[in-house]
């Protein structure tokens, strides 16, 4: 274990943190978050088919952005900007980054944003089939996860982090966090499917609402357990406790937003058009969900970074039972 710790520390010393690259990665991550909000606004305003063509809008690069075309074309403009930023980020990484796996992740980010753009086009061309729209919303979260991960991997705190010598507890934290992460991702898929299964003027399907509520319970249990375990086992490690506290706070906000979104969507079929507060609450629910997801990613990555690993699952289970 000590050998591994020394090896990591030596490796870290050899890495020079590139502040410019890290700042640019943070910029791309923030732009991606803004893109998720822009996409959520398209869905909440029922603007996905405001123009039947793609990649142009009504045959134009810059159409008159009135009515719902403002949301749909605005989303496309933000997406184009994020795509370009991702190209620059990949080139920046390939030029400055020494770690091959980070370079690969940079290439993956570009492929993900291209695939995401194509999925967006497909949703328009096929007139919003549920599977494609949900896949588009889900891939958005995965792309956000990728850009946030790149920001984490290029950060000073990541490069200079020193591993902890022991895991204080029988069940490895990294598995707890990874479990929470997988649960949140499944919940995001459910949420995306639920959201795209009915427009504002129709009631959401009961089965999916119940599944999403069940998912919220599972996420609360998993993320709550993981975060509280971090706080209990490693109270002095800000590297771990900070994302845990943020994740817990966001989880509480997200649960409140979920209830508010449900109530707002329950009433929206009686409205003459998509209106606030339904629009703002549902968009906030999507945005906060994305933040819960990426905060948990940061927490999970950090547990993998500093806590000892390579514990076989059989050993873990023996420890538990």
């Amino acid at each position, binding site marked *: 274990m000590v050998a591994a710790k020394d090896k990591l520390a030596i490796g870290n010393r050899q890495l020079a943190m590139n502040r410019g690259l890290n700042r640019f990665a943070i910029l791309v991550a923030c732009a991606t978050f803004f893109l998720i909000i822009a996409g959520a606004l398209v869905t909440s*305003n*029922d*603007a*996905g*088919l*405001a*123009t*039947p*063509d*793609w990649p142009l809008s*009504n045959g134009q690069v810059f159409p*008159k952005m*009135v*009515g*719902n*075309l*403002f949301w749909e074309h605005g989303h496309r403009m933000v997406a184009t900007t994020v795509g370009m930023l991702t190209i620059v980020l990949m080139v920046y990484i390939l030029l400055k980054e020494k770690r*091959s796996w980070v370079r*690969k992740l940079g*290439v993956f980010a570009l*492929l993900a944003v*291209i*695939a995401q753009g*194509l*999925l967006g*086009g*497909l949703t328009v*061309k*096929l*007139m*919003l*089939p*549920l*599977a494609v*729209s*949900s896949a588009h919303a889900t891939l958005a979260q995965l792309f956000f996860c990728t850009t946030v991960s790149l920001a984490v991997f290029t950060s000073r705190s990541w490069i200079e982090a020193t591993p902890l010598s022991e895991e204080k507890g029988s069940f490895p934290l990294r598995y707890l966090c990874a479990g929470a992460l997988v649960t949140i991702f499944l919940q995001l898929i459910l949420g995306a499917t639920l959201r*795209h*299964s*009915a*427009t*504002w*003027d*129709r*009631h*959401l*399907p*009961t*089965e*999916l*609402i119940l599944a999403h509520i069940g998912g919220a319970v599972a996420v609360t249990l998993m993320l709550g357990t993981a975060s509280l375990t971090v706080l209990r086992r490693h109270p002095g490690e800000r590297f771990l406790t900070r994302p845990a506290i943020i994740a817990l706070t966001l989880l509480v906000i997200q649960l409140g937003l979920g209830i508010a979104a449900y109530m707002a969507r*329950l*009433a929206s*079929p*009686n*409205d*003459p*058009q*998509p*209106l606030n507060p339904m629009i703002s609450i549902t968009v906030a629910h999507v945005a906060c969900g994305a933040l819960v997801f990426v905060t948990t990613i940061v927490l999970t990555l950090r547990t993998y970074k500093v806590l000892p690993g390579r514990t076989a699952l059989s050993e873990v289970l023996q420890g538990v039972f």
Partner: protein
Amino acid sequence: MNKQTKVWLVLSIALSLLVLGSACGGGGGDTNKGNTNTTATNQEAPPSGPTGTITGVITYNGTPPAPKKIDTTADPVCGQKNPNLTTDDTIVKDGKLANTFIYIKDGTVEGGKKIGDYAWPVPPEPVKLDQNGCHYAPHVLGIQVNQKISITNSDATQHNIHPTPKLNTEWNQTQSNGAPPIEKTFGRAEVLIPVKCNQHPWMKAYIGVLKHPLYAVSAADGTYTIPKVPPGKYTVVAWREGQTPEEQTMEVTVTASAPGKADFAFPKAGAATSSTKPSLQMLPAIEFPMMGKH
């Protein structure tokens, strides 16, 4: 990049190109799936003898919900042309309900032949649907299978017309101000096809597509007349829009000398109206397989 990374890169690019190809290749066109040609020669022409009518009045039970004001700030052209734009799903005057679609669903013509077994000629003149003041006029209309619908835009802004049928082909087309009329047909009978404008989400219309011309839409005073009905016994349906569209049926006998009479009242006593507060009971809106539209 090592060899493995290159392989993944090539695979990803190939997949992306494939998806792009699918995205650019699909959509478009105005053909209908399973075109049902009602003028097929193996079907008999409708009876040419004396005909009657079906008339009636549609009344509204209870206090109708007040029209809701529409916020047009997203497109100022709409507000300038139609400053008092409100919802038009429940138009009631003196207790009489407009925009109800009434049609013969089934029945037997004197002589024993089913109404649907005749080959009704398709009228050559198109049915008109206009977008005026960011509002569809008419709000509810009927059309025969394969009859042309001519859609015009009288607004100084652009709209997109997006019917969302279950049996016919879905399409979505933008129409700017001054653009020529969009002409389409529907190849299958379907009651009723919702139409919406995705640029102005409050704009809604409903199109009833039938194999025969035996339909009507109730006027502002709630009255309607279905003309040129061959004598016989029919099932008449009155359809009214709503979160869950409501249908009522009535058996009507028509003779050449005496018109059939079918009055309807909406909503049925005890039925919830679309203006009521939402309940916890929700209707499934999802259809599997997952490729269904939303």
